[in-house]
Structure formats: C-alpha cells, structure tokens
C-alpha cells in the first residue's frame, strides 16, 4: 500500500536532507545577522536605528515566497550569471529570518538591566567586548525557547524553496506523485516527517521554557 513511499524512499529522504541543509544555513546566517539586527534596533544612534528598523518593518510585511522570488531574480543580475537555487534560497532565508531573530534578540537585550551592562563597562570592557561576552550570551539563554520556536518555523519555511525548483522534499514528493499518483500516501509521508521533527522541537522548547521559569534567575 505504501509502495509509492518505500519504493522512492531514498529519493524522498534526499529531498528532506536538502530541507535540513537549507535550514542549517538559514539558521546559522539568520541568527548571526539577527544578533546584529537586535543591536541595531536598540541603538541610540539614529543613523543605525532608522535603516535597521526600515529593513525589519519592511520584510515583516512581505511573504517569504516573494522574497525568495525577488532574490532569485536579483542575484543573477548582480552576480552576472544564473545562481543555483540552493544558494539563492539560502540568501533569501538568511535575510528574511534575520528580522525575526533580530526581534527575539532585541527582547533579550532589553531584558538585561542597564546596570549589568554598566558593571561590565566599569571593568573596562569595550562595547563590542560587552556585546560578545555579556549581552549576547545572556540574551541567547533567556530567549532560547523563542529561538527554538523560530527555528522550527524556519525549518518549515524551507519547504517554500519549492517555488524556485529546489530539489527539496516537497518538490520531490510532487514529482513522484505526478508519476505514481499516490497522493494520500506521499503527502501524508512528508507531513509526517515534518510533524515528527517540529513536534520534537516544540517539546525541547517547552523543556527550556520550564527550566527557565523554575530557575528564574537568568
């Protein structure tokens, strides 16, 4: 009954791997960029705050699919030659997800008392040293549940790379479906895979949320 799935298992799982790889790139870049975006959003310098805010507000109003398309059209013009779908998708995701992670980091930074930062400065640490050793680690730990939740969303979003033909799992499922026409089995399978990963992730996030609430010091 499930021959459509089992017969193409390697092909489909290969697609799933692509989703995982894309998510990994998106998260690495998005979290790092988000760290900086968060700093920009709490900056007191107008020339930093304004552009970063425009960037965040702009991207949060736009569908991710459109961002994916936009980069897909833009990148060849800038690079001078057509780019492969994975790279184009990765860049789109990093730029897009950084706005969400940026807001998460911002909330984390804002939860740190002014005097704690002052304490660091009063030992002679510079701004970037304080950011690196104090603000980012504390913000990250405090916002870990939100970060995990956002990471799960990012992972789900990788399915949208379908639209530029990336050989990820949804694209491969639809290819197999067009041949075998076993839609129920095939789409249930991809749904199940995503469900397992995301559900597990949400449990992990819940665990850290509970831990944070009980400790209540960090």
């Amino acid at each position, binding site marked *: 009954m499930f021959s459509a799935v089992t017969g193409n298992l390697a092909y489909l799982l290969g697609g799933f791997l692509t989703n995982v790889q894309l998510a990994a790139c998106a998260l690495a870049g998005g979290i790092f960029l988000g760290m900086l975006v968060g700093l920009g959003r709490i900056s007191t310098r107008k020339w930093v705050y304004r552009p970063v805010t425009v960037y965040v507000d*702009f991207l949060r109003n736009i569908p991710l699919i459109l961002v994916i398309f936009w980069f897909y059209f833009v990148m060849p013009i800038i690079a001078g030659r057509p780019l492969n779908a994975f790279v184009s998708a990765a860049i789109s995701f990093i730029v897009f997800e950084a706005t969400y992670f940026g807001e998460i980091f911002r909330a984390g930074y804002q939860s740190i008392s002014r005097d704690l930062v002052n304490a660091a400065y009063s030992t002679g640490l510079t701004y970037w040293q304080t950011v690196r050793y104090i603000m980012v680690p504390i913000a990250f730990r405090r916002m870990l549940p939100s970060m995990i939740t956002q990471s799960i969303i990012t992972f789900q979003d990788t399915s949208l790379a379908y639209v530029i033909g990336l050989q990820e799992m949804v694209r491969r499922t639809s290819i197999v479906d067009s041949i075998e026409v076993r839609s129920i089995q095939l789409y249930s399978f991809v749904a199940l895979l995503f469900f397992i990963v995301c559900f597990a992730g949400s449990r992990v996030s819940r665990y850290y949320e509970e831990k944070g609430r009980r400790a209540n010091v960090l």
Partner: protein
Amino acid sequence: MLAYSFDWSVLWRQPYGEWMLHGIWYTLQIGFLAWILALTLGVAVGTLRVSNRAVLRFLGTAYVEFFRNIPFLVQLFFWYYAGPMLFGKTIQFEINSISGLNYYVAIVALGLYTASRVAEHVRAGFASIGQGQYQAVLSTGMTHFQMYRYVIVPLALRLIIPPLTTEFLTIFKNSSVAMTISVTETTFMSYKIDSETFHGLEATTGAMLVYLVLGMSIVKLMGLIENRFKVQGLISR
C-alpha cells in the same frame, strides 16, 4: 554585473496592470474569507483547549499540534492533491471537475491552518482572565457554555486584539502560498508577468509594495477596531 534594462512599466502597462489588479483582488478575497473561517474555528478550538472534559481538551490540543507542526505548503498540497481522493473514486472525479477548485481549497486550507494559531491566542486570552472572573459568572447560575458565550469569549477577544492583528497580517502573507496551486493572486501574477516579460525583478518589487500597503492598512484598521472595543481600566498601549 549582467546588463539589465529595467522596465517598470510592466506594473501598469496593459495587460499586466490588469493582471496585477486581478491578483490584488484575489489576495484580498482569499485573506478575508480565510480569516472568517479562522476566527470562528479558532475560537471554538481555543475553547476546547480549556474545557473541563479531558476528551475535548485532547481534541483541541491535537488539532493545534497537527496544524502547527506541518508546513502550510504541505498542508495545501495535501488538501488539493490528496484531499479529493479521500472521498473515493466517484466523488473524487466530481470534486476535481469543479472549476476554481484551487481557489476554494486555498481558502479552506488557509482557514484551517490559521485557526490553530488563533486558538493559541484565544487560549492565552482565557488564561489572562483571572480565576475570580470565572467564579463570579458561575455564581450567578450560568452554565459553562453560557459563561463562555456571554462573558469570557467577548472579553478574551478584546484582550487579544494585538496578537490577532499579527495573525490577520500573516494570513495575507500566507495567501501567497496559494500560487503554488495556480491561484491567481498577487504573487502568482508577478511570477506570470516575469514568465512573459522576463522582468521579474520589477514585478516582484511591485508585488512587495502591494503587500506593504496592505499590511499598513490592516494595522490602521485593527487600531481603529481596538480603540472602539477597548476594555476600560486595563493596561493599554
């Protein structure tokens, strides 16, 4: 850098301008109709989540977890491609010959998905209403159902207008996913313009502006609603 001549007229030149307008109209339709579904279903599921009966609670939780942990694109494809097959061969054929099926499936899928998110906000709204309130209503002799219907739900909805605004914005953004089943909404149109003119950059930039304006309008609209329905005496912005 590749030599590229910009042609912004693809956004308003006929027939492309008309395509864009058609697309915007479809985005609005899908968004609003799905939102109505999402609100009603979301309130129902959210109420299930806080029920006294464990069975109902489980149903509510199952619904939310199911729709939250699967990407919307996968859900959409499931309902569109696999959905008709669930009804057996004969009905399947009937369903697949409905013209504009993709349009209806998109609305239903989007509504079901968004309802799970609305349910979570509704649940948070219930949680923020103090125990005492529930007890006070029950002490006047109302049943649980009446309590929710006449007091708790109206109050909770007012309390959660800000997160609901975010969901309302999100539903319009997610409507763009319907392009994958060829629904002729804004994003689909910008892609179609590109396939005809190869000026996808201008087309998608134009589409971005559409969503931007849409987003700002909704925020304004919800702000007006929030003012109209504000709960006196609670912390407001």
